[in-house]
């Protein structure tokens, strides 16, 4: 098994890496680059805990091989906080009590970010569709949907 070289940009910073080809994007982000906001849940593309934004679209990073992420631009939850503090979506999740154990939160927030990019004023049903690939095993879904509504409101203002 020959190692492969990949270039990728994570949170606006570019990296050059030499990795085993059987690593997933998830492994590269968490273990090689220490972006531990990316969580491994089910590992089979169902739970969405490993969600990142890849070239503008949300993906399960456990379902992308490291080599397939070559030359792509990745956004993880670590990118959201700026000098001005937390991102409105992060604030909304805290204010709405949408974080219990917190394991699903980074994935939920990234799915929310992309949902609100496409639809700045989603209905509760559209929010459920937008977040359908993210599971919360504490089952705090109501608060999460409230948080997305709150974030949408904050971002429109």
């Amino acid at each position, binding site marked *: *098994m*020959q190692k*492969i070289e990949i270039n990728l940009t994570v949170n606006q910073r570019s990296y050059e890496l030499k990795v085993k*080809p*059987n*690593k*997933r994007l998830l*492994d590269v982000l968490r*273990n090689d680059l220490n972006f531990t906001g990316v969580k*491994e849940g089910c*590992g*089979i*593309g*169902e739970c*969405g805990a490993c*969600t990142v934004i890849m070239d503008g*679209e*949300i*993906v*399960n990073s*456990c*379902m*992308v*091989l490291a*080599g*397939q992420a*070559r030359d792509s631009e990745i956004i993880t939850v670590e990118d959201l906080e700026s000098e001005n503090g937390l991102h409105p979506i992060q604030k909304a999740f805290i204010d709405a009590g949408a974080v219990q154990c917190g394991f699903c939160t980074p994935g939920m927030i990234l*799915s929310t970010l*992309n949902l609100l990019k496409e639809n700045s004023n989603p209905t509760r049903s559209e929010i*459920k*569709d*937008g977040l*359908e*690939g*993210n*599971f919360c095993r504490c089952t705090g879904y109501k608060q999460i949907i409230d948080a997305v509504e709150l974030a949408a409101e904050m971002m429109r203002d």
Partner: protein
Amino acid sequence: MVILLQEFNFLQPENYREALNLLNEYHGKSKIIAGGTDLIVDLRKEKYTDLKYLIDISKLDELEYIKEDGEYIKIGSYTNHKSITKSDLVNKYAKILTLGCSEIGSPQIRNRGTIGGNIITGSPCADSVTPLVALNAIIVIESKEQKREVPIEEFYEGPYRPKIKANELLKEVYFKKLDNSYQGDFIKVKRRNAVSKARINIAALGKIDQAGKVFDIRLAPGSITPKPQRFKSVEELVKGREPDNEIIEKMGQKVAEIMIDKSGYRWSTEYKRPVIRDLTKRILKTVLEVE
């Protein structure tokens, strides 16, 4: 904890021709990876004992398109489900495929999973395949030496067993555009609303002529037979006739009988028999415009 996938060498061809050459060179020792949403799960299970090389087609723009070509719509194999659900062409000329693809997995899966992958995996419950069967889709397969076309209905030997050789690549799927005199629908029954495989799905198309008789009817139930297929003997019951509730009732019963003939009496039959009967009736009422 790091979960490792089975070992392989990773090849990333620059273009489609090179992908075919690599497949030919590493015949029997290689597999294609597209969106990876099925394959990576299998790599965790170390399912492929002869696998030495993965050939990645995810950077090949040549395989990513939805285009109109005369009376046909052609879709490249590396086109993801999200692109299909957002496509005006598909929505206009083959709405049942829009409906099917929008039911697959989750937004994350639809952003990566491809129509080619869904066809090649060959799950009997694949939500893009049932509509493609109703659309009489043709798939285009190519190796270094030759190119062939197969109707999708003839492409499977059984569940998860597509008839494709180790040196062949699925290039495209295409089907005839439907004019707006066709009614179509797709229904999926699932255990929960999100990220769910179909327990049963069904796609149907119908066209009624000027005299109110059935000019065309295509009925494709999924997950109830080992391979996807139109139920032509059921379609015949209503073809050329004026559709009514009595015929539709008979058709629903017949679909359930055929399911048991083809799949045997299984643990799920008690459940699936009334459900497929009623789904068939419901979809036929829609596509044949019966009150």
